[in-house]
């Protein structure tokens, strides 16, 4: 819970999870958390545990599904996969996000 690192918005975390699953294929919770940490270059810190409520939320919406499987260490773990709806939603969310990010970037550039 590093105070100097930015908190992650809920929707952002969802999108990160979806994107991770899209690029990596089926993955367990730990894998997803680690992947997000790596990609973000440790610029944002989230307790790895926060990933689970986010996963539950996505499960409830039907955007991802879960199955028990075996990890690379032969440990029984729950693996998450993107569903068809999830893929569509992710594309839409990505578009939204890019638009907002673009707007924000222009806005910030102009006020400099």
């Amino acid at each position: 819970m590093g105070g100097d690192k930015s908190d992650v918005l809920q929707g952002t975390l969802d999108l990160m999870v979806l994107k991770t699953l899209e690029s990596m294929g089926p993955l367990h919770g730990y894998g997803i958390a680690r992947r997000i940490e790596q990609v973000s270059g440790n610029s944002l810190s989230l307790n790895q545990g926060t990933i689970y409520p986010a996963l539950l939320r996505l499960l409830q919406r039907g955007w991802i599904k879960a199955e028990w499987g075996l990890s690379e260490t032969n440990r029984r773990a729950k693996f998450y996969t993107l569903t068809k709806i999830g893929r569509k939603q992710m594309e839409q969310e990505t578009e939204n996000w890019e638009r907002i990010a673009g707007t924000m970037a222009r806005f910030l550039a102009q006020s400099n």
Partner: protein
Amino acid sequence: MDRIRTLLSRFAALFGKKKLDADLDEELRAHIDLAIHENLKRGMSPSEARTAALRDFGGVTQIMETYRLRRGVPFLQQMTRNVRFAFRQLRKSPGFTITSVLTLALGIGAVTSVFSVVNAVLLKPLAFRDSDRLVVMREAMEEPGSERSVEPDNYLHYLRLKKETGTLADAAIFMQRGMSVSTPGDHPRIVGSVVTSPNIFRVLGVQPMLGRDFVDADAAKGAPNVVLLNYEGWQAFFGGDPKVIGQALRVGGDPAIVIGVLPPGMRFPRIELAPNIAVGPPLETMMYAPLTPSEWDLTADTGNFNYAAIARLKAGVTVEQASAELETLQNAYTVSARLPIHLGIALAPLASDVTSGISGALWLMFAAVGGVLLIACVNLANLQLARAVSAERETAVRAALGASKGQLVMARLTESLMLALVGGVAGAALAFIGVQLLLVLAPSNLPRLNEIEVSLPVLLFAVTLSLAAALVFGILPALRSLDVHPQAALQANSSRTVNSREGSRTRSVLVAGQVACTVVLLIVTLLVLRSFSRMLRQDRGFDSSHVTVAQVDLFSPEFADKLPNVSAVKLAFTDRSLTALQQLPGVQSVTVTSAMPLTGETWVDELKRPDHPLPEAQRPLINLRWINQDYLAVMQIPLVAGRNLTAADRANPYVALISERTAREAFPGENPIGRKISDIVPDDVHSVTVIGVVADTRINGLKDTAAMVYIPYWAYTPWTLSFLVRSSQASDALIPEMRQALWAIDPQVAIPSLRSMDEQLSDSVSTERFQVVVLTSFGAAALLLALLGVYGVMAYSVSLRQQEFGVRIALGSGKAALMRLVLRQAAYPVILGAGAGLMLAFVLLRWVRSLLYETPVLDPLAIGGSLLLLLAAAALAAVLPARRAALTDPMRALRTE
């Protein structure tokens, strides 16, 4: 879509919680294991690896809690916990639980039963299209100096109004009457019928289920006889035969073709012709025939007020607007046609007109039963308050552990809600029985009687009612839990300190409220009882015991009024019937009259005196009856002046007896004997001479005496006769013999009613009796509940003060003093409540006035009696706890400290 999916998945998660928890546990453990594994690979020591993994994960417990909250429905889970807790609490005190559930079940059952009657009779719209646009149209008459009176409709006036109006979409005129109907080979039955202008179903918005509607040509002169049947009539006469169209029935002896059948649920409302003119015996309408206007209908402009009419307002037109317009039309016509009378109009919405006679009584019943439920709820509130006090520790612990105010209130309210729901379900079940009971008691002329049932709206009402009841009796105890100070409550070591003055004050106020309600209910009950007993016990002017009455309708072909000798045929039938009935065993005397006794005003006519002409509106109205010389003997009516009819009058039958009231109203200050009355015999030729005055009777209804004119049936024999037989034999034995004797003379006459006069009398007050029986049982229930309420509160208070009483006795207080102490404590709320109840009664009683018969609302006996009853009940309820207080054993009371 996402929301719905989320919600479904949340609800799904309510089940199989254990497995889901195990899953989550396993998943998180896998996470930590994987992290440790990776850390180890990075070269950490096992304990370092574990610490780092847990640190990176964050608070495992918090995450699990967040996860669980998101997974299920927290509100529902909280509820489940509350329900489980409440269930355990209730199981711990079965006495309380059973008492509460039973009280609620009975209360809710009673209210729901009465509501199903109120709903069917008063609230449910009539089953016609846009029934709120239907109005009953009657004419009004005004005469300077006298009151405006409401009259039935005149056919000509109806035609003119229908043509000139701009506010009515359409209007139908009709006559409701009994008609003799038979299928071949059977004795005829008298069936409720509507003889109507052919547009009636277009006005009502009803279409036949089979066959066709009336068309205007059906009412044309010389058109073939056709009828439409109700669903019930179709079942009764044709057993529901789908090929009924085109078949014939004998109606009044003549064949009539069935052209259509109306759908089930189509019930024709009973429309009173005018406020004081009944439509005859309550017959369910089964048949409709087109009304062909007679010559008289098309010419009479001042008399012939014989019809009822239903009109449909144009969309958006109010009853007031239509009234104003029609009133103007009537006034204008009065002037332009130079009528000797002044015409007006009286419109009433159909739904309220149909129930105008009963709505007051029904609402009163509903209010009374609501009062009983309220009193029951107060009892339960008191019990719950007592329980809340003993549960204060429990509440304090919860509050100390951080339960929110909402959770505290909900925890206590859940118990009340559970009781109310169980009570409500049981009550709804009881309502099915209650409705049957009410139907048995209900007077048969109650409008829309056959629509009364426990329907879906009624059940919804029961559910709402139980929730409301739970709030009423549960909210006070629940809110009290907010006042619990955890520290004080937890430190206190006995219930004595917690039982604050405030709590006992709340309970006293509740008892006072309960007593007030009970006083009002008791006063109303006693008033209605007094009114009913006055009605039954006053002098009726006739003796109904040992009299059996047979109503006979002459509607077979040999009595058809087209026949030239029909008068002679009717007369012969009457003569032969009287002779035959006289010969039955045990018969003392036999007579005939033209109207069934105790069925309201019938054959109402104006009394015209050739020697003293009066303007039409000032002529006294009388009831005309066709009798013979034995009428006074059978009915035991004394002759006051002049002479009775004799057999010798048969030669010159144009003589009349009048009642004292007729003498007063038509011959004020004169001797009526020997005076003439004109235009009263339907032959329009003969005047009759008054030969005697007889005592007044309440023959049309027990509420009032009637102005009567009696003429021998030798002058004119009507088509409807009632034979009265005075016999030493019981009615039950006599009835089949009478039926046999009458049908032996003519098997084609109808006998719609054959019963003892006592039964007829008892039926004539069935509405009042219904009201009395129902109100008395509610009053008794209220009194019992109030008694229990006072007892409960006093007993509880005494049990809490045992130690105090022990100390008092130890200090030398006498038993009598202790009893006084307790009784005084009980007296406050009771006396306060009784006072409040009296004041409330003075405000509310004016709505009861119209329901009472010759009984002032401030009847001292009713008011004094109610107060006495209540005080006696309260004293009884307080004495037992007071005795227990006085018998406190000081040693034991002090030792328990």
